[in-house]
């Protein structure tokens, strides 16, 4: 299945959004690994930031083990720096 990942913060320097192909019944970790593969080719300097980034569905921050059921869009949340 395909998941759109909306870029926020520093990830906007790479793309406005990422589209990743993952297996059915996947979990958030699969999205992270798909992005890791893509960034390792296109933008390896972002891998450390990816490792410290969270994923959200709508207004909910997810764990890597959370399943993606009827989900087609996530947001990637790099380390935050408000104030």
């Amino acid at each position, binding site marked *: 299945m395909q998941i759109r990942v909306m870029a*926020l*913060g*520093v990830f*906007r*320097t790479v793309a406005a959004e990422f589209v990743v192909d993952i297996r059915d019944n996947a979990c958030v970790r699969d999205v992270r690994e798909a992005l890791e593969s893509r960034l390792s080719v296109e933008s390896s300097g972002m891998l450390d*930031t990816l490792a*410290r*980034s*969270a994923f*959200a569905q*709508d*207004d*909910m*921050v*997810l*764990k*890597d*083990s959370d399943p993606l059921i009827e989900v087609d869009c996530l*947001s990637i*949340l*790099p*380390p*935050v*720096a*408000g*104030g």
Partner: protein
Amino acid sequence: MRITQSEDGWFCGLVDGPCPTDQWLVHVEDPGHGAINTFYGVVRNHNEGQAAASVDYDVHEGLALKSLAALCTEIVASLPVRLYVIHSCGMVAVGEASVVIAASSAHRAEAFEATRRCIDQLKIRVPIWKREIAPDQSDRWLDGHTIRVD
């Protein structure tokens, strides 16, 4: 302004551009409160040895409002205060406020504590990102705190 507020005595919001600094009083004034403490976070003209002209704030608005509301709820539940916090989205120039916090309480200690706790926690919990823009218009995203939950 996009806002969330509670009858428990807190108000939070997101505003496009710089934060107004003249709107907090109505949200924290209370005849039983003898102390009001305010904090303005203001864009400065330098950071980490580099000149800065402005900051562009990127915000996950839904999650940011939810995070601000959770933060306010926690503070008001643990301290006898009324609390107001707003944060900017988008461009804010040097000298302009990007965050405004006000807290009132019967005595000063709780107002100081609520204000400090609010800005300290906002910086590490709320999904907001800074793109710092230099006078020559070059830019860089600033690093921050992870909000991974696992």
